[in-house]
């Protein structure tokens, strides 16, 4: 059964996390649905306010300004995301690295943060110390951006909350990083930037997450790396590593050109004629859509 056939579907969207976050729930009375959606948006707003690169008072901004000089206390949620980021950085041998902010600023994707120094090109995730007391310290001049992981984290927090509120079926979509939960499969359209004439790529997902990495809509200057890749993870979490063979990271192509292969990922070279993508990463099965070369 598809969700659209259920009687009451409530869907709302807000501008958060630098994108449009949409939450859709079904299977509960409308008033309950709105209450649950409000609470889920609150969770996402918390991630937004604490982990935004743009907001001057966010933990990320405070770290970029002060963490080189002294240890900075951050919200437990920020600490948790940083802990995951560090684990993924280690597992991916630095393919995923939150100190990518230096490049994003240089590319004009992010504004220069309030910071007294220029980042050291040698700095990496290894120069971030997560102290046991919940404080964070940089050991080299660097800037961090959690844009590649915080959306997935926020989606997971929101889904946890919706489920705890008794919502049986729903979808949380933070600008393309989305998670579908519940018994019904939902159809997701894949935005690929260029249209393959006559067809629309979609994927039907059930209790799964999708993280997308596409160069569509990006400035040409940084449009490097693989063509759009879509990572579908069964069972849920966008950011959490469960077992070595299920390692999935939420990354962005700005972060070292493409979805980072993690231990357990099958890196596949596509041999199909007419497909331009020389390399892509599949996480679970064959859910990667390739943009056809023009």
């Amino acid at each position, binding site marked *: 059964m598809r*969700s*659209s056939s259920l009687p009451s579907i409530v*869907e*709302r*969207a*807000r*501008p*958060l996390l*630098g*994108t*449009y976050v*949409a939450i*859709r729930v079904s299977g509960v009375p409308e008033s309950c649905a*709105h209450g649950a959606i*409000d609470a889920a948006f609150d969770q996402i707003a918390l991630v937004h306010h604490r982990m935004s690169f743009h907001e001057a008072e966010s933990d990320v901004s405070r770290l970029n300004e002060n963490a080189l000089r002294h240890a900075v206390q951050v919200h437990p949620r920020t600490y948790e995301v940083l802990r995951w980021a560090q684990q993924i950085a280690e597992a991916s041998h630095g393919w995923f690295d939150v100190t990518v902010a230096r490049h994003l600023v240089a590319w004009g994707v992010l504004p220069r943060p309030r910071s007294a120094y220029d980042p050291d090109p040698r700095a990496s995730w290894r120069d971030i110390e997560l102290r046991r007391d919940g404080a964070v310290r940089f050991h080299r001049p660097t800037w961090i951006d959690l844009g590649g992981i915080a*959306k997935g984290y926020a989606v997971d927090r929101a889904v946890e909350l919706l489920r705890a509120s008794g919502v049986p079926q729903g*979808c949380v*979509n933070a*600008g*393309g990083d*989305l998670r*579908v939960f519940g018994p019904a*499969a*939902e*159809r*997701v*359209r*894949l*935005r*690929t*930037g260029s*249209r393959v004439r*006559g*067809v*629309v*790529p*979609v*994927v*039907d*997902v*059930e*209790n*799964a997450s999708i993280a*997308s*990495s*596409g*160069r*569509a*809509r*990006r400035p040409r200057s940084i449009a490097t790396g693989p063509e*759009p890749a*879509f990572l*579908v993870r*069964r069972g849920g979490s966008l950011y959490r590593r469960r077992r070595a063979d299920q390692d999935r990271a939420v990354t*962005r192509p700005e972060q070292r050109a493409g979805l980072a292969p993690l231990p357990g990922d099958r890196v596949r070279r596509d041999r199909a004629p007419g497909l331009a993508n020389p390399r892509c990463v599949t996480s*679970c*099965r*064959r*859910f990667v*859509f390739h943009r056809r070369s023009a």
Partner: protein
Amino acid sequence: MRSRLLLIPVASIVATVPAFAATYLTVEKAQALMFPGATFVQDFRMLDREQVRAIEKVSGVRVEGRTVKAWRASTGGWFLVDQVVGKHEFIPFALALDLDGAVKDVEILEYHEAYGGEVRLPAWRAQFLGKRHGATLRLTEDVKNISGATLSCRHVTDGVKRLLATYALVLAAVDR
């Protein structure tokens, strides 16, 4: 099977396909959610040229339409509806301001996205009018999720900035 990748032939579904469209809330529903229990007094304003210039100067955002769709809430605060047109997006949104003129909430009312420049064309937009359940949007009814390169919400953020300036320069006088 839990997940399947499909390629849907577009021609078999509709002739004209907006890349994505969704309707989230009506104006009345947004009012009820953003100001629970309140009643509303409509207080639309027409901006004169000087006000437009002042708003653009304060907000740094271009004013596209001169009508300010505003309602006063009985519980205090303002409810405003506006829309932004991006390169690919057409997005009506609602803004709730508290008694001090601070942002309480922003809700997206609808979201339409197209590739290319269609969104700027009145004809393209007109296809949505009164056609929420029409054939044009059949693909949208079928596909309620979209994933891909992350879209920036900058246009709505700018729209909110513009409305905050509008409030400060035009509406706040009413509250004083």
